């Protein structure tokens, strides 16, 4: 089966545009957050959100087209366009029938659902506007990306929760390895709106009102809702080499499943270790582990924190731990894919940014590894875990390793 490279990255989010903007922001003390809108009943003093600063819609849509796209379609298409440009595939170099589109989202359709169904809720169902109806389908952004760039390869949308982003990478990896496509554009996006904030707060309750996020410990921390779009270009290595493209990283492996009845921390550690073993690596060869914690103490965050503490006990030289949600907020799928994008960019830069708001009760060995710095090797793991025990883990290797 073919080797698979990541050759392009696009980001639209609270840090601005591009993965370098995320890295720069994360490595400085700058905050990417904005105040929680006052008219939206902030959950507490100092509550913040991660809102996208700019969406370069005009670069990818005509004025007429812009009337037919909603925010998530615009954000995801812009991220995909950036990634294709970044990969050097924007100017006619793309094999349209051989390029797949994979999209992941957890709540993309929610805001447009409200807009479309409002006449029903107002008791005026005959006033439904058919022009807004397609936006109810959560794969519509996937279709928009395919239309905008003329991509007729395999196409799908995954919506299992935050983990869908890593699942999309895993599925794209399989499609490329199997020869079903030469290239895949993997995109994830989530948006914030007044209704999205209302739903987020309803779901996460008092976690929105806590004083601050808390990563890698057992203390409940604050969840910061966030929006953005990320896209990766994955390419079969032979296709990338043929056009002289450089790799951010190679995808070395992918594994997913669900933790069963045993302790989840140990189970997750076992999943990480098994994936490495499949690639012929041991834990001591992993330079970076990208964690999925959002700064709270939800079931999956506690399990991940425990797995990290077990890992920190004996891996030498030290693997750095990085939680991108500590500087990007809880953006479900968009931050799930950001984990992979950032890990690839960190491997290329040979450095990782620090995790902010490390919990005071996180083990010392974990806290030390969360401070960022130079990477000791060429391998990274990107980990995702859901509260129902479903996990996914991606193994990346620096492109020039």
């Amino acid at each position, binding site marked *: 089966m073919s080797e698979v490279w990541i050759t392009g990255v696009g980001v639209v989010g609270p840090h601005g545009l591009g993965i370098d903007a995320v890295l720069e922001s994360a490595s400085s003390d700058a905050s990417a957050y904005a105040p929680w809108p006052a008219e939206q009943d902030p959950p507490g003093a100092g509550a913040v959100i991660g809102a996208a600063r700019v969406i370069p819609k005009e670069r990818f849509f005509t004025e007429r087209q812009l009337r037919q796209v909603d925010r998530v379609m615009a954000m995801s298409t812009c991220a995909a366009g950036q990634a294709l440009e970044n990969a050097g595939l924007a100017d006619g170099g793309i094999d349209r029938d051989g390029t797949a589109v994979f999209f992941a989202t957890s709540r993309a359709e929610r805001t447009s659902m409200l807009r479309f169904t409002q006449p029903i*809720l107002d008791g005026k169902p*005959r006033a439904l506007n058919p022009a807004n*109806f397609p936006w109810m389908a959560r794969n519509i*952004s996937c*279709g*928009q990306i*395919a239309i905008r760039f003329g991509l007729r390869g395999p*196409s799908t949308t995954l919506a299992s929760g935050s983990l869908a982003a890593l699942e999309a990478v895993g599925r794209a990896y399989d499609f490329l390895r199997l020869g079903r496509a030469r290239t895949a554009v993997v995109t994830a996006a989530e948006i914030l709106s007044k209704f999205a904030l209302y739903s987020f*707060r309803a779901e996460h309750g008092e976690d929105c009102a806590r004083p601050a996020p808390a990563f890698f410990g057992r203390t409940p921390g604050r969840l910061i809702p966030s929006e953005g779009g990320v896209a990766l270009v994955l390419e079969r290595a032979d296709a990338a080499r043929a056009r002289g493209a450089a790799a951010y990283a190679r995808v070395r492996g992918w594994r997913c499943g669900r933790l*069963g009845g045993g302790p989840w921390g140990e189970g997750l550690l076992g999943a990480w270790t098994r994936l490495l073993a499949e690639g012929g690596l041991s834990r001591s060869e992993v330079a970076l582990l990208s964690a999925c914690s959002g700064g709270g103490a939800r079931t999956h965050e506690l399990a991940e924190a425990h797995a990290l503490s077990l890992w920190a006990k004996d891996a030498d030289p030290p693997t750095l731990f990085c939680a991108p949600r500590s500087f990007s907020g809880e953006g479900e799928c968009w931050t799930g894919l950001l984990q992979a994008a950032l890990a690839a960019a960190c491997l290329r830069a040979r450095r990782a940014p620090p995790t902010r708001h490390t919990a005071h009760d996180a083990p010392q060995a974990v806290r030390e590894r969360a401070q960022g710095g130079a990477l000791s090797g060429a391998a990274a793991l990107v980990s995702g875990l859901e509260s129902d025990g479903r996990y996914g883990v991606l193994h990346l290797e620096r492109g020039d390793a």
Partner: protein
Amino acid sequence: MSARRVVATGLGAVTAFGRGIDAYWKALLRGDSAARPIERFDSTPYRSRLGAEVPPSLYADAELRRACGDPAEDSAFFMALAADEALRAARVGPKFSDEDRVGCALGMLCAGAAEQMAIARDYLGGGPRPSAGLVTAARPGYQLSFLVERHNLTGPSGLISTACASSTDAIGHAFDMIRLGACDAALAGGGDVLAESIHGGFNSMFAITVSSAKPFDRERDGFFIGEGAGALYLETLESALSRGAEILAEVLGYGLSNTAHHLTATSEDGAGEALAMRRALEEAGVPPEAVDYVNTHGTATRYNDATEIRAVEAVFGARAPRILANSNKAAIGHCMGASGALEAVATILALKTGLVPPTPGTRGDAEGLNMDLVKGEPRRASIRTAISQSFGFGGACSCVALRRWDGES
């Protein structure tokens, strides 16, 4: 690529005809249509009131619902019933051990839509903040979470939401999981509900029939929405043989494509749709001339059927008139995200029994119709290889290729 072969050893269904494969298959063979005026919500303001609801007695069966683990959302309830039937038929589960690593791939479109509407109503009306339970049930991933926890499925999983192509894609996803060795067996399919927002939406697009669904008929005027769930238990051939399971059919391959043409309309020439069909056949190692039967998407809308006819022509050419075809949507309605799974179930039953159910309500006189559309009575035929295909909003196209099980040839 791994040479693992994948077979179906268990099927389950919930439709407007009731609970179970038997009710579904007998109604298909009779040529029944489940279209009725919708009663679950006030359908009188809409241009068409037609839909195909799961019988109220099933909705009202609190004991059955509790026996299913009391799912907080209806599509998960339907899928739980269908999964139970599929697992019983396959003689596995229903609760697996951690070591079994059974996977799960589901597809859906409208699941959670009623719950999302309830949250929106609270939001607009300034009512109390919705409960965390309601918000959880409204999440797209709820059905998958419910199923994997209920059956302790510890293998890989995925939830596909490619509109009306969702659960055909999900079957393909499960096929990949098994073939690539990520697991030895998987539950595939999906459940979906007849949601007011979707009924209203398709009504506003004039896609819901005001008379009856008539796929591939010159006078066709749209579909009616159905609901329910289809479930398939898939496993490696080796696993099925070693445990002496009854093999119902072999999954040979699948194909996906995007038409990259329009957000809601199918492509005019059928080229994008044909790509998914060709990819499925290529992966299956099946030449077009070996296909005996196409379970069509067959929505009975003017443009969809015309496009599908062109896609079939493009893929099968002169072979097309010798291919048996039907549409199940005129019987059970367009079950949205669950339609692909329910149609794959019907395709497998046709392969196994050698009976192709008729397409109710159609004269089969659509312009350019090139397939041998079965209508009126079921057709007895020796069909060995079939495809089941689904097309949806966002240009999503998926197709799965299946073969009758004749032993290890």
